[in-house]
């Protein structure tokens, strides 16, 4: 049988992959934003797995709200990305180092 642990491990691996995506990706800011989506997916996976095994629909309610927030977050993130691109003509992560020290 598929156990809770299996689902949680999938969630953990997704979470790790999304973090790795943010660290190894040095060129494309859009992919960094996509990693954020992956991270939320990992969290959702955890919530749904727990919810299902606990037979408690409230966990799924939480996921519902995460999805709503994630959509809003993506909209704002992409808007910032667009004006960043307008000003710099680049979304290269490595170029974003004016502020440092």
């Amino acid at each position, binding site marked *: 049988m598929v156990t809770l642990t299996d689902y949680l491990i999938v969630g953990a691996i997704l979470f790790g992959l999304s*973090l790795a995506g943010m660290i190894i990706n*040095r060129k494309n800011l859009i992919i960094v934003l996509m990693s954020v989506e992956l991270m939320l997916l990992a969290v959702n996976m955890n919530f749904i797995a727990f919810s299902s095994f606990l037979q408690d629909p409230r966990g799924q309610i939480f996921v519902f709200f995460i999805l709503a927030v994630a959509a809003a977050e993506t909209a704002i993130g992409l808007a910032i990305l667009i004006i960043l691109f307008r000003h710099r003509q680049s979304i290269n992560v490595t170029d974003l*180092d004016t502020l*440092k020290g």
Partner: protein
Amino acid sequence: MELLKTLSLLVVIAPLVGAAGAGLFCRQVSKQFAHRLTIALMGFSLILSLYVACLVIGQDQSYEGVLYLWGQSGKLTLNVGFLIDNLTACMMVTVTFVSFLVHIYSIGYMAEDGGYQRFFSYISLFTFFMLMLVTANNFLQLFFGWEGVGLASYLLIGFWFNRESANQGSFKAFLVNRVGDFGFVVGIAGVLGYFGSLDYIPVFAAIPGVAEANTLIPGTSWSVISFIGFFLFVGAMAKSAQMPLHVWLPESMEGPTPISALIHAATMVTAGVFMVARLSPLYQYTPSMQSFILIIGATGALFTGLIAIVQNDIKRVVAYSTLSQLGYMMAAAGVSAYAASIFHLMTHAAFKALLFLGAGSVILAMHHDQDLRHMGGLRKQMPITYFTFLIGTLALCAIPPFSGFFSKDAIIEAVHSSQIGGASYAYVCVVLGSFVTAFYSFRALFLAFHGEGRMSHEAKHHVKESPWVVWLPLVLLAIPSVIQGYMMVGPMLFSEPSYLGNSITVLTQNNVLMRMGEEFRGGFHMILESFGNFPLWFAILGAFSAWIAYVKKPELPPLCVKRFKWLYTILIHKYGFDDFNDWFFVRGGQRTAKLMYQGDARIIDDFFVNGAGRLITWCSATARRLQTGYIYHYAFVMLLGLMALLVWLMFR
């Protein structure tokens, strides 16, 4: 008691009113108004504090009470209150007296300065804080005054803020004092933690119990009292410029001279000594801290004196001598001779202020040239300054019957008869210190006032005696420098009850003064006795060596040189240690002093003070490079931090 409370309140508030009047309206009020206002209020304050002293010492009254409830949280109450007892009364008189004279003196000294009104405001403000400090009945108010005098001193050292060196000096003073202040805060926090109160009376009452209950290492005298005492003493070390934290005091000489007299000689630097005396009930229960205080004090007394020998700036010579005298006071406090310590504090306040103001008078005549090598022969042009400076020097060198003799001799004797750890080392230090003191004091005196003038021809003609507002305080300070010691030695140190009454606590086994008091037969007898003891001869020897080295030897015509060579040879052969004296103390002393000075400059200044600063700056510059600006590095650091916490907490 109400009378005492009202009087004390007036004494404290009057300078604040003066400061506010002269400071807040410094653009609007005239110079005359500024000094008249502040001096009138200071005079008022002085008269009232004398009256307070009469009431307290003469009629044995005292006052302890809360004036104003500052804050309350839980069981802790923070008050503003007064504890007016004998110790406080002594300090109040000393502070207001010196401050009053410095105010008068500043009329002449600062006459041409642009920040005249501001200056008067600052010194009045300083006096206010100092009075707050001495009248406090709790640790917090003590700290408030403590920080306040630090602030005022910072403002005053940096008074000539367009001078780079003045800025540096004030900054250094502030930083070193911060080190002390934080020690102090830890101490206060300790007091609060273990006693649950910040008022003196309940804390002092609880000390024996707490000392017994909270021994750090069983079977030793290391209790939390030692811990608290140590941190509080760190505060005192910074404020009173004790050995490792003394570096700021010479630098602070960049301020105007009246300030050096008021703050860095007579009053502020003695705050540490006052604190140790005030907290005598605490330090009595920690023998280890007593030894520590003794050793720090005695070391300072000797070694900072040595440094004074090679200084050429007249104010710096006096500054180093202050360091040395503070060492004496601390040493006395270390051997539980608090009365001697406070006594020396009071005599020192008078004669050191005298020396500083005298030096200021010279500087004024020399048009703000402070270099001893450019002076000489001023005796004839400035007789009053010379005479008063001489009195101050004699008092400093503990030559009887001047005031310094009685207090210093009592200290040396107290150290001699003490049995606590480090006392024998301290005794050697303080005795040698008296030689050194005499040597550098007379050196300064001779270089400035004797011999041929070394200033330019033009300048020579401009040298004249200072105006009366400058020399009047000198004369007024010279009087106590002569008589104060003789008059006060008995009642201050040995009589029962003494001037200090029961405001200090000394355990019987530590009470060296009481033992000395059994042999005390009056001031005159003390003078006679001193001729049979080392310290006086050391002092005279020091003065004499200075005379040889700086007056006689370089200038005497060949005949005299021959005659004195003969005398010199006789002296060498007769006593056997003149040779040694000359070689070891004059030359060797100079060499050691030079070494010490360089060591001081290199090791302490460069390594500890600047080095610590540089180390932090370096750390800072390196650490900021971690902030690369790259998002992926930031994410990486977050992940790293998370992982570290995760692994640590999971497998802890």
